[in-house]
């Protein structure tokens, strides 16, 4: 190799090309630059999330109400506990990874194996937890209805507790409508999953049960501030809310409308929503679910690939590849990637669950 390189006479100078100005191996340097580019990708996602959230700042879903499940605690409102646990698991697997790197520096193969094993387990638990979060998110809990304008309306009782669609609907037992499938109609057409309840069943139940009220996506603004505003529009809006809402004082909470206005809103309902997909979700604006799926999905994919890469290196460590190579830099490089995955999660956690 050496003989093929043209001598420039600058070999001993930094930036002469003959030595390493960054004092790292090619692989490690490139891992850093890959991480940089990946960090920018994630920032793009999170900044786009911020954009959409600022666009709908007065109607974005409240994370505490959406992510409030904990395994084996059914019906218990446990906001954030589970994601906090997931965060711990990931940080801890980061710690075991750095311990593995540290053991590698001292050429202690047994210790590297042990710590890498823990790291892989931690990563697998995290991916599993994320799958569970997705399952809950997709399945939904109460269900909601959607209006012609794409607004999501949820049901609450007189105390403001959420009421599920199944408790609202008065099911029409005489109704007997079959699902249209390819086998019993035109072969090239079939209908999607039919909703559990029809709009008329929900509307019927809502009219008969006079306790029910409608909760919209709007977050109640600071009415005092709006009324003091110089713009006539703000004052009119504040007066309207004060007249129509049950909870005009609940700043930052979702607006609940009085019975007469709730009934009026019910008139524009065109469909029911249970759970979430990319076009509809019972929590609020479709963008909320889109970003949830994209960002946590992209991160989850990183964790999954991180686990797979870790397993490959883990096998190499067991086989003694790095003992023969007399250095464990490969463990350090996958370690960098693994820490990066943790780093991204720290931000996703903040922007999705806390802020």
């Amino acid at each position, binding site marked *: 190799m050496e003989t093929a390189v043209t001598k420039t006479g600058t070999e001993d100078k930094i930036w002469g090309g003959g030595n390493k*100005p*960054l*004092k*790292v191996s090619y692989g490690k*340097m490139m891992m*850093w*630059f890959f*991480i*940089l580019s990946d*960090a*920018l990708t994630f*920032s*793009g996602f999170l900044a*786009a999330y*911020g*954009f*959409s*959230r*600022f*666009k*709908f*700042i*007065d109607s974005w879903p409240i994370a505490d109400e959406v992510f409030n499940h904990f395994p084996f605690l059914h019906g218990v409102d446990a*906001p*954030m*506990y589970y994601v*906090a646990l997931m*965060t*711990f698991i990931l*940080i*801890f697997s*980061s*710690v075991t*990874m*750095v*311990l593995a*790197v*540290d053991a590698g*520096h*001292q050429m202690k193969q047994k210790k590297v194996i042990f710590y890498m094993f823990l790291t892989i387990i931690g990563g697998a638990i995290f991916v599993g937890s994320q799958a569970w979060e997705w399952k809950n998110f997709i399945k939904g809990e109460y269900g909601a209805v959607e*209006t*012609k*304008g794409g*607004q999501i309306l949820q049901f609450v009782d007189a105390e403001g507790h959420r009421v599920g669609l199944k408790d609202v609907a008065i099911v029409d037992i005489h109704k007997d409508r079959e699902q249209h499938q390819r086998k019993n109609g035109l072969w090239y057409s079939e209908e999607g999953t039919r909703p559990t309840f029809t709009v008329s069943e929900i509307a019927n139940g809502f009219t008969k049960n006079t306790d029910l009220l409608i909760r919209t996506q709007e977050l109640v603004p600071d009415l005092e501030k709006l009324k003091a505003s110089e713009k006539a*529009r703000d004052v009119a809006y504040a007066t309207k809310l004060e007249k129509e809402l049950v909870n005009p004082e609940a700043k*930052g909470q979702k607006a609940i409308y009085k019975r007469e206005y709730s009934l009026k809103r019910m008139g524009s309902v065109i469909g029911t929503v249970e759970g979430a997909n990319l076009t509809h979700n019972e929590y609020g604006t479709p963008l909320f679910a889109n970003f949830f799926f994209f960002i946590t999905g992209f991160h989850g994919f990183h964790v999954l690939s991180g686990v797979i890469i870790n397993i490959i290196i883990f096998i190499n460590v067991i086989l003694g590849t790095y003992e023969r190579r007399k250095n464990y*830099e490969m463990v350090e490089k996958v*370690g*960098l990637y693994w*820490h*990066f995955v*943790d*780093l991204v999660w*720290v*931000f996703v*956690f*903040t922007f999705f*669950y*806390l*802020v």
Partner: protein
Amino acid sequence: MAHDIAHHESNTAKIWKVFILLSVVTIVEVILGIIKPAFLIDTTIISMKLLNWIFIILTIYKAYYITWSFMHMEGETKGLRRSVVWTAVFLICYLIFILLTEGDYVFEVFKGGYKSWDF
């Protein structure tokens, strides 16, 4: 920190210290997120709740420790450190500034325009 592969000191004590620090910060975040102290929500600085500023600052604090300690950025040369960190910090700040400003503008248009968005 010298990068001598042959005889490397063990940093185990320091690693555990950083772990405890990261855990404490996360616990503080979760506690603040659950109780949501009223005065932190009512105080607004540069059109964002003080509570959210606290979350973001704590997150950056955690990110610093992960990068510097776990990813060993403190041990790299100035050249590598700056080419990675400065690039990221500059581009991310720029992106966030533009998109959030634009998002806020679109919000105002939706709210104040003469078109109805909820029909």
